[in-house]
């Protein structure tokens, strides 16, 4: 895999993992018949220990765990698709792993990008923008008043 391909894959795997479960199900469902695939592993749930850094930038420490569901699928031509998604979401993990496999195949790449990844990317951007606008409306400018005793 070239660096560009790797970055692309990291990008779509992130989008698939963060996607709203219902949205991913609808988008994948709208694709019609998808190639057969075998489940090589899972979907299975487990834990990932999340790490932070002292002072935000110092030495790492273990903050606490999160639930994660992972899945590995193999499509007919032998392509492996992987997914790690938060929570206990076996169906989401399997759909994300299948999408990951298909995105690696020339025959399916464009279709999945246009009909799954692009809409999910837009949804995520819209969600972020809405949150940002709400938070932004609470931006505050404090004024310091000169106290009598300071004069």
């Amino acid at each position, binding site marked *: 895999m070239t660096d560009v391909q790797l970055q692309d894959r990291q990008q779509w795997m992130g989008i698939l993992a963060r996607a709203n479960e219902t949205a991913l199900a609808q988008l994948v469902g709208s694709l019609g018949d998808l190639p057969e695939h075998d489940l090589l592993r899972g979907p299975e749930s487990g834990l*990932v220990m999340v790490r*932070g850094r*002292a002072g935000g930038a110092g030495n790492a420490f273990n903050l606490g765990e999160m639930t994660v569901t992972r899945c590995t699928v193999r499509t007919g031509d032998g392509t492996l698709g992987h997914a790690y998604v938060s929570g206990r979401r076996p169906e989401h993990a399997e759909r994300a792993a299948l999408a990951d496999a298909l995105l690696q195949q020339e025959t399916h790449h464009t279709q999945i990008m246009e009909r799954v990844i692009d809409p999910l990317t837009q949804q995520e951007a819209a969600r972020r923008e809405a949150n940002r606008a709400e938070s932004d409306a609470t931006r505050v400018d404090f004024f310091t008043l000169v106290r009598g005793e300071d004069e």
Partner: protein
Amino acid sequence: MYVAVKGGEKAIDTAHDLLAKERRGNPDIPEIATAQIAEQLTLAVDRVMSEGSLYDRGLAALAIKQARGDLIEAIFLIRAYRTTMPRFGYSEPVETSRMTIRRRISATYKDLPGGQILGPTFDYTHRLLDFNLETEGPAQPEIGSSVSRPADAHMPRVLDLLGKEGLMEPPDGASAARDNGDGKVGDLTREPVSFPADRDVRLQNLARGDEGFLLALGYSTQRGYGRNHPFAGEVRMGEVRVEFVPEELGFAIEISEITLTECEMVTQFKGSKDVPPQFTRGYGLAFGHCERKTMSMALVDRALRADELGEERQAPAQDEEFVLSHSDNIQATGFVEHLKLPHYVDFQSELELLRKMRAEIAKAHVEAAE
């Protein structure tokens, strides 16, 4: 000592049935759904996630419902659940500097790059009961987007601003000696804590520690028991991405976005022959939106750095063994609450001992009188 008892199965089963009945309350009132807890009691969910040390909103909501709102019981349920799950590995350290900010305030600078974002806060409310919530509650307010200035994409850390001027010690302290050098990160869920503990283990312990315990200790430092004159340099809350490197892939992928609260305290100076005086720091980080917890954690983290900063350890908050051994509310409640389990044999022996002592004293009195 607790000695196993037998029997009572039927009574125990019935007691648990009664518990379920009490949990449900008046059946004429609609049952609460876990989704309602997850969406509307969000700060209770955050506390259970952070002290249960497991990020999963759905599980935390279920635990709160099952525990009838007893948050320590809910945390207990979560801790028990996590022991049934396999561990896939450790994430890359989260980059809180790249947090999608929903709240960010500083008590040290009025104007700072990126601005102050109040976000959803209880601060500046009047703490008056809102009787509108007793009925249907007001319609969800529309948040006006009449903002003249869009938020800055990048919000630099307040403590970095001081650091650039050399006025703030580095994140790991000026000595930066606390890393044991092998890059290993201590994990108290795998190895018991030993003393003296490194800061990584202390922070892990505090991150899952009881909010009330840490609040009281943090407060004690403000009242003079280990004083270090803190300022809330920055409190930020928002979403960060979690990256994980699966062994089978060998590269990092983002698996989720989680909500975190981070607090960086600016505390009193420290210098040496080689380093002119600098501010020192305390750090707090936890799951969800939990400012009281992270602020307290930062105060206690700073207090526990006493040895490293050459301060005399006099106060409880500076006593590492005391703090780390008593911060976990599940350990604490386990030991306190086990006292109500049958201790019949143990108590019998004490009772006999006491009777014997009294009899001996009585006998001695009689002999003395004769």
